[in-house]
C-alpha cells in the first residue's frame, strides 16, 4: 500500500470505498499493518483488538455490497482515547487501577459513531485519568511525538494525537478538560477540537473533572474534524449537562471565504511572558494571513486570564477527588492483595493503583473541599470562573472569533518537565480558560519552528458556534496550507 493511503482524509477514503477501489477490510488491514510497523516507535496504542476492527470493517463491506453505506464515516478506522467506554473493549485510563477492566457498555458518543459505521481501531495512550500534558503520566508506556521521537506528543490525549499524526488511524477521539485535545494536536501538527461544553455527551467518558470534560475529534484536516464532530455530537438524555441544539452538517457548510468581513479578537494576555518567541511569530503570521483574507483584527483584553491556572487546579482537582473515589478496590478495579481490613483495602489498593500525579490531584482536590477551606478555595474559584466566563462574553460582543497560540512552546523533550509539576501545568496556560468558560476551541497547524516541530493556532468561538469556528479554521487552512504535511517515520 502506498504511503499516501494512510495519510488520506475521510472523504477521499469514503469515496474510494464507494467506488470499490478498496474494501473496508482492506482499509482496516492497511491501518493495522501501518500501526504494527510504526507504533513500536511512536507508542500511541495501549491495545488494539484487531479482530474486532476487522469485524467492524466486514460489516461495512456487507453494507456497501447491499448498497446501504451509512455515510462518510462508514468503514473509516477511528482511534479512541483509552478513557472512552466501548462494550467489550478495555478501558484502562492508562492506569494500573483499571489495567484489566473491560467496559460492559458503550458510551453515547461512541454509539453515535457506531451507528454511522465507523470502525473502531485501538485504545490510545494518555496521561493517567487524563491528568497531564505530555502523556508521560501513563502507567504503561511513553508515547513519542511522530515529528521528533525524542519529544512528547502532548497530553493528555497524546496517543490520539500521535496516532493520527503518524497515519496509524484516519482520525481519533480524545477528551479535553484543560487543553488535552488542543495542546497535543498543536504539538503533533494536526487539527484538534474541544466542542462547547454540552455539545457531545459525556456518558461513557471516564470523568476527570465533570464540569470541564468534553469529548472531541482529532484529524489531519479541518474537514475531517468536522465530519468526526458530526459523528459524535448531539443531545443525550443520559447526560444531564448535554444541551439540545440544532446540529448542522459542519463539513458540508465549510466555506473558504468565511473570514471575509469577520472580526478577529487577539487577546494581549496570550502573547506575553512565557510564550516562545517563534511560536508567537508564527501565530501572528497566521493572524496576518486571516487579515489578508478580509478579516479585521482587533486587540482585546481578557483581564482574568492569569487566574486560570489556580482556578482550574482548584475546580478540576476538587471534582477529580470525588470522581475518582469509585476506584476503590471493591468492585472492578485493582485490589491490593495484602489488605487486612476494609480501610486498609482502600489505602493499599489506591496507593498501588494510582500514579503520582493522580494522587497529587486527589489530595489537592480533597483539601480544597475540606470543611473550613471550601469557601476560601472552591467557592472562590467558582466565582473567579464566572469572571473568566464574563471576560469571554464581553469580548464576543464585539468579535467573531478569538485567536491565540495553543501551546506556549513546541513539544518539549521527554523527561524535561516530569520533576516540575508547575512547569508542566503551565503548558495548558492558553487552553484552560476555554474549558472554564465552556466555549469551543480548535487548534490547527500554523507552521513549523526552527526545531522542525509544528506550532498550533488556537481559535476560540462563541458557545455552540462550532459551524463558524470550523469554517474560519477551514478558510485559514485552505489559504495557509499547513495541513497535509506529514512526519516521516
Amino acid at each position: 500500500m502506498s504511503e499516501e493511503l494512510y495519510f488520506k482524509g475521510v472523504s477521499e477514503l469514503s469515496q474510494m470505498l464507494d467506488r470499490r477501489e478498496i474494501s473496508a477490510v482492506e482499509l482496516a488491514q492497511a491501518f493495522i499493518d501501518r500501526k504494527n510497523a510504526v507504533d513500536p516507535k511512536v507508542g500511541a496504542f495501549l491495545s488494539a483488538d484487531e479482530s474486532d476492527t476487522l469485524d467492524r470493517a466486514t460489516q461495512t463491506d456487507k453494507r456497501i455490497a447491499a448498497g446501504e453505506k451509512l455515510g462518510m464515516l462508514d468503514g473509516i478506522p477511528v482511534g479512541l482515547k483509552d478513557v472512552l467506554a466501548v462494550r467489550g473493549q478495555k478501558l484502562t485510563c492508562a492506569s494500573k487501577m483499571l489495567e484489566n477492566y473491560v467496559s460492559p457498555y458503550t458510551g453515547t458518543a461512541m454509539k453515535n459513531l457506531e451507528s454511522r459505521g465507523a470502525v473502531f481501531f485501538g485504545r490510545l495512550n494518555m496521561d493517567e485519568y487524563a491528568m497531564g500534558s505530555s502523556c508521560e503520566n501513563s502507567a504503561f508506556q511513553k508515547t513519542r511525538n511522530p515529528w521528533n521521537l525524542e519529544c512528547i506528543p502532548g497530553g493528555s490525549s497524546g496517543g490520539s494525537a500521535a496516532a493520527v499524526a503518524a497515519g496509524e488511524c484516519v482520525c481519533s477521539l480524545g477528551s479535553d478538560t484543560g487543553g488535552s485535545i488542543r495542546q497535543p494536536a498543536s504539538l503533533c501538527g494536526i487539527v484538534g477540537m474541544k466542542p462547547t461544553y454540552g455539545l457531545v455527551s459525556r456518558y461513557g467518558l471516564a470523568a476527570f473533572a465533570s464540569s470541564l470534560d468534553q469529548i472531541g475529534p482529532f484529524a489531519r484536516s479541518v474537514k475531517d474534524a468536522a465530519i468526526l464532530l458530526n459523528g459524535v455530537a448531539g443531545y443525550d438524555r443520559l447526560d444531564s449537562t448535554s444541551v439540545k441544539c440544532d446540529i448542522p452538517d459542519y463539513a458540508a457548510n465549510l466555506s473558504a471565504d468565511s473570514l471575509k468581513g469577520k472580526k478577529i479578537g487577539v487577546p494581549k494576555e496570550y502573547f506575553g511572558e512565557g510564550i516562545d518567541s517563534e511560536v508567537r511569530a508564527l501565530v501572528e503570521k497566521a493572524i496576518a494571513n486571516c487579515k489578508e483574507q478580509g478579516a479585521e483584527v482587533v486587540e482585546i483584553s481578557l483581564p482574568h486570564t492569569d487566574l486560570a491556572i489556580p482556578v482550574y487546579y482548584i475546580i478540576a482537582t476538587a471534582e477529580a477527588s470525588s470522581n475518582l473515589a469509585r476506584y476503590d478496590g471493591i468492585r472492578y478495579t485493582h485490589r491490593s492483595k495484602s489488605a487486612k481490613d476494609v480501610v486498609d483495602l482502600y489505602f493499599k489498593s489506591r496507593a498501588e493503583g494510582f500514579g503520582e500525579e493522580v494522587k497529587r490531584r486527589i489530595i489537592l482536590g480533597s483539601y480544597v473541599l475540606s470543611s473550613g477551606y471550601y469557601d476560601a478555595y472552591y467557592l472562590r474559584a467558582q466565582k473567579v470562573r464566572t469572571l473568566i466566563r464574563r471576560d469571554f462574553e464581553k469580548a464576543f460582543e464585539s468579535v467573531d472569533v478569538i485567536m491565540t497560540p495553543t501551546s506556549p512552546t513546541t513539544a518539549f523533550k521527554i523527561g524535561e518537565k516530569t520533576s516540575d509539576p508547575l512547569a508542566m501545568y503551565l503548558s495548558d496556560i492558553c487552553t484552560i480558560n476555554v474549558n472554564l468558560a465552556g466555549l469551543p476551541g480548535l487548534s490547527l497547524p500554523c507552521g513549523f519552528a526552527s526545531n522542525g516541530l509544528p506550532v498550533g493556532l488556537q481559535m476560540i468561538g462563541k458557545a455552540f458556534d462550532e459551524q463558524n469556528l470550523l469554517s474560519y479554521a477551514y478558510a485559514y487552512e485552505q489559504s495557509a496550507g499547513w495541513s497535509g504535511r506529514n512526519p516521516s517515520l
Partner: protein
Amino acid sequence: MEYEAVIGLEVHVQLKTDSKMFTSVAHKFAEPPNTLTDPVVWALPGVLPVLNFEAIRKTIELGLMFGCKIPEITKWDRKNYFYPDSPKNYQLSQYDQPLCEGGGVEIELPGTNRAEMGAHRVVKLTRIHLEEDVGKLTHFATDSLVDYNRAGTPLMEIVSEPDMHSSEEVFAYMTSLKNTISFAGISDCDMEKGQMRADVNVSVRPVGETKLGVKVEMKNLNSISNVRNCIDYEIRRQIECLKKGIPLVQETRRWDAQLGVTQSMRGKEDAHDYRYFPDPDLMPVKISGELLESIKAGLCEMPFDRQRRYMKDYDLPYSVTSVMSIDRGLSEYFEEAVKTYSKNPKAIANYLINDLLRELGAAASAEASESKSGDGFEDLEGEMTVFGHSSHKERLESCRITPANLAGLVKIIDDGVITKQMAKEVFVEMFATGKTAEAIVEEKGLKQNSDTGELEKFALEAMAANRKAVDQFKAGNDKAINALIGPIMKASKGKANPAMVLDTLKKLIAQG
C-alpha cells in the same frame, strides 16, 4: 431538679417509584443480590446520573401536604465518604437547597382510652430533601458481601426540628408520617423492609432552660420499638449522668437492641468531613409554578382532616374513623359505598371495618399459609402491625363485594326487606360469590314477611297461647310483649318483619 428531653428526628423514607433515583433500573424488595443493577448503580467509569422526575414530584407532594415551602431552585450535592455499600463513594444528596423547607406534621397523642381522641399538636419540620439509598453489607467471619440492589433507591430525608419531648410523641410523629405518606402512595413505609428508618437526636436539659443540652445521635433505627426503647434508655442515661455530675459529650451512639443499651460509636472529633460540593453532573432544578399547581391539584386529604370529616359528616365513632381514615383502600371503599347509599354511613362503616375486614383477613391468612407450605419461603409480609401493614387497597380491590353491593345490603336491611340476623348469611354469600344482596335474597327466598294478614294470624295465635303476657302488657309491663314476638318469628320461619310484628301486636292488644 426536674429534667426534660428534647428530641429531633431524621426519618429516611424510600419512595415508591418505578425506577431508582438516578437510573432506569427498577427498585424492589427481596430480589436476588445484585440483580437490580446497571452500569450507573455499579458506578462504572463514564456513567452519569439522570434525575428521576417521579421522585421529585412525590417529594414535593409530601412537602405540600406538610405545608412546606417549595423553593424555586433546588440542587444536588455530593456527600463524600468511603464505604463499600456506596458504589461511587459519594452519595448524591441535597446540602443547602433542599426540595422542601419548613412545614409541620400534625400528631395525635394517646387518648384516655381507645375510644377517645387524644390531644393533637404540630411537630415542626426543618426540611425534606431527596437523596439515594446505599447498598447492603453482610458480614461473615473473614469476608463481607455487598448487595447493591438497594443502592440508588430514591430516599427522602424528613428532618424535624428538635420539637419532641418523649418517646410517645416520637411514636405519634412516626405514626402520622407513615399514615400520611402511605395514604398518598408515596411509600409503603414498611419498617421491616427498611422502607422507613430513623436517626434520633436526643438531649436533656433542666425544665425551664431554653438552651439545648448536649446532643446525642442514634442512627438507623429500623423498628418502632427500637426507636421507643432507645429514646427511653437514652433519656434515662443522660438524666442520670447529669444528676451524677458526669458531663455529656456530643457523640453518635449505637442502639444495641439485644442488651437494650446505647453504646458510644464516635465522638464529635471523629465526625466525617463530607466535603460537600454541588454535583457537576446534575443541573440545578427549577420548580415551575405549573408543576406546583398540578401537584397541588392532585393532593390528597390529610388523614386527620379525613377523620374529623368522617366524625362530623357521618357521625362515625372515633375508633372506627381512626382505622378507616388512615387507609386509602378503606376510605375509598367507604366513600364509594356512601355515594351509592347515603342514608346509613354508620352501618356501612361497621360492615366494612368489622365484617369485611374480618373476612378479608381470614382469606388472606388462609392464602398465606397455603403459599408457605407450597414454596418453602418465609412469609415476608409478617404480622399486620401498625408499622408492618400495607394498605388494604389491593385486597379491597380484589374483594368480590363491591362498595355498591355493600351499600345495597345495608339498604335492604334499612328498608326492612331482610332482618339483621338474615343479613349475616347474605353477607357470607356475597363475599363468596360477588352477587348482590337482592339477588341472594331473591334466590334463597329470604325476603322478610310483611304480609299483614298472615302476621295478624300469627299474632292472634300467639296471643291466644299466652294470655298472661297479654294481660301483663296491658297492665303496663312493656317487656311482656317480647314473650309474644318469639313464637311469631318462629311461626314465620324468621322472616317476619320485626317492626311490623311489634306494631301488629300492639294494635291487636289494644283492640282486644
